[in-house]
C-alpha cells in the first residue's frame, strides 16, 4: 500500500482541531464561560490554516483544481463553512456560531473521508476551466446558504423563547398582555398564553428555564432574522451564478444547457426554495416564522443536491460519485 499522502495527514490534523473546537463550543453553550468560546475559536484558528494547506497540497498532488470528486468537493464546502464561521467569530464576535459550523464542517469532512479517493486524474467530462468556476461557486454558495439555516433556526428558538417568556409573564400578570411588545403581536400572544398558563402547572419550569437560557445566549430575534437574510443575500446570487455556469458548461460539454438531470433538478429546487424565501420575506403572513422554516427546507435541498443525487440517483453528474 502506498504511503498516506501529506494532504490526508493535514486533513486529519484539521479534523482533530475542529473536534476540539466543537467540544469547547458545546461546553461554552452549557457553561456560558467566555473563555471556552475563546478556546473554541483558538482551536478553529489552529485547524483552519492546516485545512487550507491540506487543500493546497491536494491540488498539487492531483494536478488540478481540488474540486474534482466528492472527497475534494465535501472538503471544499467544509472549508468555506469554517472560513465563514471564523469571519463571524472574529469580526462580529459571535462565538456561538462556531457550534453549528463545526458540526456541519466535521460532518462534511466525515463524509469526505468515507468517499476518499487518492489524488488522481480527472474524468474527461471535467477537463474544463468551468470546473473551477462552476464547482467553486456551488461549493461556496452551499456553505454560505447553510448559515442562513443556522440563523433561521436560532431565530425560531429565540422567537419561541420570547413568546414563552411573554406568555408566562401574561399568565402571572394578565395586564401585561395588552402591551404589544416584540415581533409576536397580540394574536400570537393570546394563542400561546393558553399554553403558557397550562405549562406553569406541569413541566413548565424546565421549559421556562430553557427559554430564559435561550434568551441569554442568542441575540434578538430581529437581528437573527437579518443575519439569516444576509446569508441568503450573499449565497443566493452565487448559487444562481453557479447554476448558470453549469448550464453554460453543459452546453459546451454535452450540447445542452439544461436536461433535467437529477443534479440539475435538485440545484433548481434549491434555487426555487431560496427564491420562495426571498418572496416570503416581503409577504405578510410568511415573513416571520415561515421564512425561517423555509431555510430549513433550503438546507435539506442543499444536502440533497450535494449527496443524494450522487450517491443514490444515477445521472450525468454521477462521475463525481468517487
Amino acid at each position, binding site marked *: 500500500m502506498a504511503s498516506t499522502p501529506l494532504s490526508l495527514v493535514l486533513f486529519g490534523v484539521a479534523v482533530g482541531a475542529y473536534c476540539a473546537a466543537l467540544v469547547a463550543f458545546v461546553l461554552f453553550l452549557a457553561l456560558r464561560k467566555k473563555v471556552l468560546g475563546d478556546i473554541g475559536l483558538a482551536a478553529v484558528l489552529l485547524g483552519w490554516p492546516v485545512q487550507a494547506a491540506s487543500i493546497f497540497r491536494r491540488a498539487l498532488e492531483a494536478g488540478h483544481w481540488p474540486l474534482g470528486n466528492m472527497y475534494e468537493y465535501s472538503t471544499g464546502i467544509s472549508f468555506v463553512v469554517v472560513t465563514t464561521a471564523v469571519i463571524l467569530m472574529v*469580526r*462580529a464576535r459571535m462565538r456561538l456560531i462556531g457550534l453549528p459550523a463545526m458540526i456541519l464542517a466535521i460532518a462534511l469532512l466525515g463524509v469526505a473521508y468515507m468517499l476518499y479517493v487518492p489524488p*488522481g*486524474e480527472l*474524468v*474527461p*467530462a471535467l*477537463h*474544463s476551466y*468551468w470546473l473551477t468556476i462552476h464547482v467553486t461557486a456551488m461549493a461556496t454558495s452551499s456553505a454560505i446558504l447553510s448559515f442562513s439555516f443556522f440563523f433561521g433556526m436560532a431565530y425560531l428558538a429565540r422567537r419561541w423563547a420570547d413568546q414563552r417568556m411573554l406568555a408566562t409573564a401574561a399568565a402571572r400578570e394578565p395586564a401585561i398582555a395588552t402591551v*404589544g*411588545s416584540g*415581533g409576536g*403581536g397580540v394574536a400570537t400572544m393570546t394563542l400561546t398564553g393558553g399554553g403558557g398558563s397550562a405549562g406553569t402547572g406541569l413541566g413548565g419550569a424546565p421549559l421556562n428555564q430553557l427559554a430564559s437560557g435561550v434568551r441569554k445566549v442568542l441575540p434578538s430575534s*430581529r*437581528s437573527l432574522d*437579518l443575519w439569516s*437574510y*444576509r446569508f441568503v*443575500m450573499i449565497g*443566493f*446570487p452565487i448559487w*444562481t*451564478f453557479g447554476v*448558470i455556469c453549469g*448550464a*453554460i458548461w453543459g*452546453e*459546451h*460539454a*454535452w*450540447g*445542452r*444547457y439544461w*436536461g*433535467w*438531470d*437529477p443534479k440539475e*433538478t*435538485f440545484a*433548481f*429546487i434549491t434555487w*426555487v*426554495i431560496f*427564491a*420562495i424565501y426571498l*418572496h*416570503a*420575506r*416581503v*409577504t*405578510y*403572513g*410568511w*415573513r*416571520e416564522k415561515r421564512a425561517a422554516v423555509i431555510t430549513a427546507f433550503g438546507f435539506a435541498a442543499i444536502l440533497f443536491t450535494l449527496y443524494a*443525487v450522487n450517491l443514490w*440517483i*444515477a445521472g450525468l453528474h454521477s462521475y463525481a460519485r468517487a
Partner: protein
Amino acid sequence: MTAARPALRVRAARFWREYTRMRTAIFFLIGVVAIVAVGSFVPQAGTSDPAKVQAFLSNNPTLTSVFSWLQLPLTDVFVSPIFYVLLGSLYIALGACVLRRGRALVVRTLKRYPRTPQYWGEIGSWVFHSSLFLLLVAVVWGKSTGYQGLVTLVEGQSFTETRAGYDQLQEGVLFNGQHTGFTMRLNSFNATYQTSGEASDYVSNVSVMDHGRTVETKDIRVNDFLGYDGVNVYQQDYGWAPTITVTNPQGQTVYSGPIEFFDEQTQQGNKAEAVGVLKVPDFDYTIPGASQPVQIGARIAMFPDARVIPTVSSGGTIDPSLTQYGPGGLAPRNPVMEFQMYVGDLGLNNGQAQDVNVLDTDKMQPYFSDAHVVAIPLGGSYTFAMPGANGQQLPFTVSFAKLQQYSLFQVNKDSGVPLIYTAFVLIMVGLLAKLYARPLLERRARRRSGVIRLDPRWTADVSGEPESQPAPEPAPDTREREPV
C-alpha cells in the same frame, strides 16, 4: 344576463387580484418544487434508461398506483400537462407583475421622481423578472427553430449534415428544413485510460468538407466541440466496431462491414467488454425443402484484450476447443469475439421497426443446440455448416476481419443560445441590483449625512428589511400586493 355581468366582472377582478398576489406565486413555486422533486427521484422516461424506468415502476407498485389514481405524473414529469400548467400559471402571474411594475417604473422615471435607493432596487427586480421571460422566449425559440441529432461514425466514415445523414433526428416545429449540407469525416478516434480503467481522454479527429474542399480539421473532445455554419458537433460516446464478414454456402460474401458494439448493460462505461448483434437478412441460401431463404443472426461479445481462461478436459489435458474468454485490458492487444449463432427468420418482415441491437430469436434456432459459443480472434474465421441436398453439409464462414472504434456525436442547431446567455447576464445583473442597490446606496447616504456613526461592516440594520424603519408591529405590508 346583464345583471350578472358586473358581478362576474367583480369576481374576475377579485380572482385576478388574488391570482397575481405574491402569496399565490409562493404557492405556485411550492408546486413547482414538489413536482420537480418527483422528477429527480424517479427515473424519467425521456432521460433515463427505459429498463430502469420499468424496474422502478415494478419495484414500487404502491407508489405507482397512488400516483396513477391521483392522476399525477411519475416517470414523465417534465413533459406532463400538470408541469406545464404550473409553469404557465407562474409565468402568467409573473407577466402580470412585470407589466404592472414596469408601468409604475416608467411613470416614476418619466415624472422624474427622486431616484431613491429603493428605485434602483425596483429596477433590478424588474430586470431580473423580465429576464426570466427572455429566458423562456429564448428556450422556446431555440428549440423550435433548431434540431438535435445523433450520428455514429466508424473511423474513416463520413456523414453529411442532411436529414438522411442522422441515426436519430429531432427537428423543432418551426425548423425551416434547411440543413447545412457540410460533410464531416472521422479520420481517427483515440481513447486513453488511467490505470484504474477509467477513460482519461477520448478524442475524435475530424475533417469538415464543404463544397468539395476541406475547410477544417479538428480534435473533438467532451469539452471541445466543433462549431461549423451554426451547427455544433459534440463528442458524446464511443465504442468498438469490429468488421465482420460472412460468406454463404455458395461462396458469396453476403455481409461485410463494421458493427457498432455497446457497453454491457450492467457495466456502462466499461470498454473492456462490448456486446453487439449481427443480422444477415440476405444470406441468399435456401435449405432444400424449405419454403423461403434462411437468415442468420448472432449475439456477440467482444473483448479487445481478451483474458484466456483455459479449461481442462476430463482427460486432464487442456482442451483448446473449450477455452473461454473474459474481459481483460482496454487496448486492442488480443481482440476476440464470442459468437452465439442463430439460424431461421430474423422477423424483419412483420412491418415493425426493429432495434438493430436486439436479436429477436422467436423464429430462430440456436446453431448449436447446447448454446455453444464460438470464439473468433481478430483475423480469424470460423466455418459453420448448412444442410444441403442429400444430407450434404455445406460450409459457410464468419470472419473477424478488422477492429476499429466508432464515435458517437451529438449534433445541435440552437439559435436561442446567445439569447439565453444574454438572459443569464441580465438575471445576474438584475438580481445583484435588487439585493444590493438599496442597502449599499442607503449606507452611502447615511455615511454622507454623517448623522449616525455606524460600524460599516457589521451593523444590524443595514438592509434587506421590507421597511427601513424598524417595524414593531406586523402592520399589513404595503408591498404585500405586489406580485412575484
